[in-house]
């Protein structure tokens, strides 16, 4: 017993711990500066956010201690129990939770608020590691894939119901983990196709989408076939069929829309081309056609889903996310202000506590989601580059540690940690510099908020703990 304990302390990866502490300190300084005003100067003033954050940070060290004391087998043994308990918490917050900024995702106990969705990331990571390592997991089996989808999507749906779209989207980061463990590229390709089609069908006229899908299908066909003759035949068949339908529509005045005319023309020519393909034994054409028609069907159902199933506030959120609707005083305004603040920092920044843009008239989420602006303004390009390098180092270190695990459980868990931190890092910093859409999720270890800080601390230190015992774990 005694021997093992000394073992752990010796085996802790101090580089990761050091990176963690550096990020935490940098984060706290930023919050202090963002909230700072002449009226309150004591750093321990817990009426101010920096004072509170100091309290959360101290509590984090207690949490780290607890994580180190818990036996390393605990997570694997109780994985499902932890997961189900978290799901129950997510359900109960829907009913008992307190609404903050339109999202019902907080439990309120006295003056103290906890956000279970933050901790759900930890639980989902543990259960994913457990499930994917528990037996000879193969992505080819439909049952396995289905179970994985249930594990990941249950918290997503529950968090989406809490109206916290940002936290729900984080779970899509697990695709990286699945990819690392052998998920076929095809699934990822289909996933990307669905996402692109969904967004495009909201943004672009469906006629243009139809044409684009057709053209892409023909190009794919051209790559496969490589015979100019066949491609010309295809093009002529499609255009003449469409022209005939167009003519009939005109002469008999059926008043069909141009879209329908094209669709009928395409269907007719498809039938002709299919027979032609069947004769020539070009079976891959049917796969192309399958994808072509399911894409058309999908783009048409998106409109219906969007207009008839989604609630108006969800529609607005997606609209603003995709930039369909501009709201100069809302999100767009925040991003503009954010860019001004970061841009005004220049190469070396205005100096600690010297920021003006981030103090005088900035967005309400100054110390939470937009904390990166304070860094940008006060520490300049030097500061922002350092922060990005710190995150990259942390992520690379986690991947390095994950790859050296002998236990599959530990490796998968490590990748979960990396994926979640990576997703938060990309989206949060991306939105402050106007690259990614504004999704309200915190910057790990930086943003103000106890739940977020504690969840990330636990997430990371369970992995450090697993890594410290890597020589004892084999499964």
């Amino acid at each position, binding site marked *: 017993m005694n021997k093992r304990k000394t073992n752990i302390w010796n085996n802790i990866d101090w580089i990761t711990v050091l990176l963690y502490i550096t990020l935490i300190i940098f984060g706290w300084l930023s919050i202090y500066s963002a909230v700072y005003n002449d009226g309150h100067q004591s750093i321990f003033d817990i009426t101010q956010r920096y004072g509170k954050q100091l309290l959360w940070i101290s509590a984090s060290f207690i949490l780290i201690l607890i994580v180190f004391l818990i036996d390393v087998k605990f997570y694997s043994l109780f994985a499902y129990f932890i997961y189900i308990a978290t799901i129950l918490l997510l359900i109960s917050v829907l009913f008992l939770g307190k609404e903050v900024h339109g999202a019902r995702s907080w439990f309120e106990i006295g003056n103290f608020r906890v956000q279970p969705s933050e901790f759900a990331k930890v639980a989902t990571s543990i259960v994913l590691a457990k499930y994917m390592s528990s037996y000879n997991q193969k992505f080819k089996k439909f049952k396995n894939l289905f179970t994985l989808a249930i594990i990941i999507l249950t918290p997503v749906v529950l968090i989406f119901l809490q109206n916290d779209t940002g936290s729900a989207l984080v779970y899509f980061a697990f695709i990286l983990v699945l*990819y690392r463990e052998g998920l076929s590229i095809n699934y990822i390709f289909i996933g990307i196709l669905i996402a692109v089609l969904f967004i495009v069908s909201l943004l672009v006229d469906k006629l243009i989408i139809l044409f684009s899908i057709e053209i892409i299908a023909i190009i794919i066909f051209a790559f496969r076939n490589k015979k100019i003759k066949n491609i010309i035949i295809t093009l002529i068949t499609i255009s003449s069929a469409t022209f005939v339908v167009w003519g009939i529509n005109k002469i008999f005045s059926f008043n069909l829309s141009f879209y329908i005319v094209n669709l009928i023309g395409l269907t007719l020519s498809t039938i002709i081309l299919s027979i032609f393909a069947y004769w020539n034994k070009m079976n891959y054409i049917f796969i192309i056609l399958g994808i072509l028609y399911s894409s058309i069907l999908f783009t048409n159902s998106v409109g219906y889903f969007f207009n008839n199933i989604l609630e108006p506030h969800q529609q607005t959120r997606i609209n603003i996310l995709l930039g369909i609707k501009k709201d100069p005083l809302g999100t767009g305004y925040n991003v503009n202000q954010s860019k001004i603040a970061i841009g005004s920092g220049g190469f070396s920044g205005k100096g600690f506590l010297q920021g003006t843009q981030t103090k005088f008239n900035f967005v309400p989420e100054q110390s939470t989601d937009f904390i990166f602006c304070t860094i940008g303004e006060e520490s300049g390009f030097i500061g922002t580059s350092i922060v*990005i390098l710190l995150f990259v180092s942390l992520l690379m270190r986690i*991947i390095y540690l994950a790859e050296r695990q002998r236990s599959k459980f530990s490796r998968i868990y490590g990748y979960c940690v990396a994926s979640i931190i990576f997703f938060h890092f990309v989206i949060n910093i991306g939105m402050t*510099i106007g690259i990614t859409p504004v999704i309200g999720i915190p910057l790990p270890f930086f943003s103000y908020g106890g739940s977020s800080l504690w969840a990330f601390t636990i997430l990371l230190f369970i992995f450090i703990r697993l890594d410290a015992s890597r020589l004892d774990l084999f499964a």
Partner: protein
Amino acid sequence: MDIFKQRKYFIQIIIILISIIYIIRLFALQVVDTSYKISASNNVLRHITQYPARGLVYDRNEELLVYNQAAYDLMIVPRQLEAFDTTDFCNIINISKQQLIKEINKAKKYSYFKPSLFLKQMSSVTYAKLQEKLYKYKGFFVQTRTLRKYTQKIAAHALGYVGEVDEEITKKKPYYKLGDYMGISGIEKSYEKELRGKKGVQIYLVDVHNRIKGNYKKGKYDTNAVAGANITTTLDANLQEYGEKLMQNKKGSIVAIEPSTGEILTMVTSPSYNPALLVGRIRTKNYLNLLKDTLKPLFNRAVMAKYPPGSTFKIITALVGLQEKVLYKNTLYSCHGGYHYGRQIVGCHNHPSPLDLTHAIQYSCNAYFCNVYRSIIDNPEFTSADEGFKVWRDYVTSFGLGNKLGTDFANELSGNIPTTKYYDKYYGHGHWSSLTTLSLSIGQGELGITPLQLANMTSTVANRGFYYTPHLIKKISSKKNIDEKFLVQRYTKIDSSYFPIVIDGMEKVINGEAGSTARIAKIKDIIVCGKTGTAQNPHGDNHSIFIAFAPKDNPKIAIAVFIENGGYGARWAAPTASLMIEKYLKKNISRKWLENYILNCDLINEQTQDKHME
């Protein structure tokens, strides 16, 4: 072994690639692009919301009813405050030093960095004085707003009022920010979206002396305010004013509709209030006073009060009878001082007997319509009174009674036409009959109808069988058409061929021989068709009711008048309606004696005097 191990490289490449993109982007933003730095050294951005002027409101003859007046809000940004001469400052804007400190602390509590309202609606004189010295008071600036102003003291309920949004609304509708105004009632509420226009924002650079240095980035991020659309209402200001004058010292309501369009010409609620009372800083105080008033001036009787329609409802009873073919033009019923059943009687007054349908309307015979009602409900074609009643109710509701009409008036109520369920609950299923509900035939009992609904019913009769949903909107300057639902003819379940018979009876009510119920309402050269009504009132004197339309052919106006505690319909309501019609059709009043008779009638103070004497 782990055949997917090489996939870690792909993941690592993604991470590094994105980080490089971000660093390049930051380099471009922070080092290459200098435009962000110009503003950042000493200057501060100030966002000034551009409030659009609210749309104007006109009457149907394009006479201006509601317009705007400038007001100046003094705003404060606590973070930018610097020591200043408080005595001088307090003198200019006329507040005490304690108040100043209190307001500054309030603003600080809200936010150090965001502007908050310091003093609402300064006069232009104060503003002019302050403007000169504003540079001395860093952290303060002035925002221009508009307040509503009214040309006349009329139509307070129809026009509605504008008030400041509360926190609840800002949460639900993010367009509104604290301190914004929005329509709270009446047209201001119904057409809020059109009237308010669209806010804009201008971003200025402000130097250390609190002076505006110019537009930020040449106005690239500015948006212009879009002025609100002007609205033309269907109200006739002259008629509305006249109606309110006639209704002085009385409780009740007048609603007049143009039958051929459904346009509401007049919507009088009495007692009313001066709309100018609910504007600006005095609004809250005045509102509370109006709320405390025992005569309930804030209660919009025209669309919210429900009364039994009394004998005016006999028109409906007759039409249902005709349609169901249990009543014909020449059907005769005799009347011996009322309708007797068992030991009970529905009383009637003295008039010739027996009567046919038109004369029964002319003399408003109760017994006649009790007979008609019973033959409708107890029609042998139906298996039960229950079934008959449902048929009857279907006809009644097709006149727009018992449901909200769907007007553009936010707080209209639905009134009440009882259902079989109601009687089943009250008497038990199968334990009630046409006799139990007999009082409905003459418009008493459980019936509850709003003045607007009754005017609409009159308009339906005037149109011989259809109505347009009554509305207050005639034109919106930003739109081609008004809402399409106001342009649809809505037919009742009564064939239009039955209406002329009833209308003949209504003509006789006013133009018939001596003994007709409302000869007082007769106007020279115009054939007015009408019907009196008296609503039984368990709390005091009966309510006086009159409905009418004129001229008989091609009617221009349909009207319903309710005068609370006015007694018989012919006593106060009929002459009031007659004067309104004359005013609208002939523009001036020939019967000054009748006008004086109504103007001098005081039912509010008289009553209170009566009570004192008791």
